[in-house]
């Protein structure tokens, strides 16, 4: 009996996983493929009247699941530990990240030379936070939006009242976020990143000069359109935009669980065993790339 129960639970969890192959899913009546989702969501975002918090802003509170994983934000096929998925880049002609030539050369071998920062249990940084593993929770209070991630207990506290960024000599794993409401959209300006985070496990990277502007907008009560505009002249030839989505997790009694990431982390040991090095960013490596 116990065996049957266990098997049934496994069936229950396995079926949605198969159904969640990113390129074929839908949210808010839109296909999740990022270019299509972006186009489809725009008119809905303009006409949808979102639920609001007591202070009148769109209510993003709740548990959310990312539409895409952070295995590789460019188009990729199935591989060991990797599920095929479309490019999240929506505004370059070939849907590729517009790397400068020297940066592109670096990227080609990045994941074979360095340990993915997330594997070391470091915070994901922005925008990876939006596609990083496990469940997400958004908590809103007057003047703040808090975005919690189960993985590695990573969090972002985003003030939504006017104020300056941290001084430029302050460098942070998660960057310094300043938010504001533009109509029904939460716009977050992110600076002060330390340049030690990747977009994904494929080694797509930024420098500490990166400037990200994110936009969180409810498309319907259970879907957030997520957009991040990335500007980093050290690494990229032009600013570019990635799009993903969050879908509401409505499971009764759901909660984030403790995830003391480092407690048994042998991934670092294993990676070092095959010759990978701790990632130390591109400062000094891409000096001539500008």
């Amino acid at each position: 009996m116990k065996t049957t129960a266990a098997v049934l639970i496994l069936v229950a969890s396995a079926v949605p996983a198969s159904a969640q192959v990113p390129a074929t899913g839908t949210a808010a009546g839109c296909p999740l493929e990022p270019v299509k989702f972006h186009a489809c969501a725009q008119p809905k975002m303009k006409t949808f009247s979102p639920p609001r918090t007591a202070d009148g802003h769109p209510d993003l509170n709740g548990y959310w699941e990312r539409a895409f994983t952070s295995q590789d934000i460019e188009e990729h096929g199935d591989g060991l530990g990797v599920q095929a998925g479309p490019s999240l880049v929506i505004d370059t002609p070939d849907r590729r990240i517009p790397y400068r030539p020297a940066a592109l050369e670096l990227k080609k071998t990045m994941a074979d030379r360095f340990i993915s920062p997330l594997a070391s249990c470091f915070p994901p940084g922005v925008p990876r936070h939006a596609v990083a593993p496990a469940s997400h929770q958004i908590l809103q209070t007057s003047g703040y939006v808090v975005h919690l991630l189960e993985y590695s207990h990573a969090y972002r506290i985003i003030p939504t009242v006017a104020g300056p960024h941290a001084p430029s000599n302050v460098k942070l794993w998660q960057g310094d976020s300043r938010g504001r409401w533009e109509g029904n959209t939460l716009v977050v300006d992110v600076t002060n990143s330390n340049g030690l985070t990747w977009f994904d496990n494929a080694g797509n990277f930024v420098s500490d000069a990166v400037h990200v502007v994110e936009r969180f907008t409810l498309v319907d009560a259970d879907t957030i359109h997520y957009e991040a505009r990335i500007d980093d002249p050290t690494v990229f030839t032009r600013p570019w935009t990635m799009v993903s989505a969050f879908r509401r997790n409505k499971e009764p009694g759901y909660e984030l669980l403790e995830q003391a990431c480092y407690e048994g982390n042998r991934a670092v040991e294993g990676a070092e065993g095959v010759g990978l090095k701790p990632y130390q960013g591109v400062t000094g490596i891409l000096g001539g790339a500008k």
Partner: protein
Amino acid sequence: MKRLTTAVAAIALLLATPVVAHHSFSAEFDATKPVTLKGKLTKMDWVNPHGWLYIDVAQPDGKVVNWAIEAGSPNALLRRGLRQNDFPIGSELIIDGYRSKSGATTANGTSVKFADGRNFFLGASDAAEGTPK
């Protein structure tokens, strides 16, 4: 019979579900070196960010070697209905996975089969964990 059908369907689905984890498996494990390990469970580490199973495997020459097999995150296993006591020490297991590129007796597990026929998907499928309900 219905139970058997369900179990077979579940196993088929589980094996078809890609493994997705927080780090790059391909950097550390060799997709061209699948391995099937049969032996007794000596330890289960129910730890973050990935659980680990350790089994004693008898080699053809009779020498017993302890293998370490990376499994899913405890929270992912928990949400799939598994508990730490589902892995009693001494259990006879058959584990499928991929060998480490380092040549160490380490593998990334994809599925585990118990002597009583129970099959579990081992991979750190954060896609499964992150499915809206």
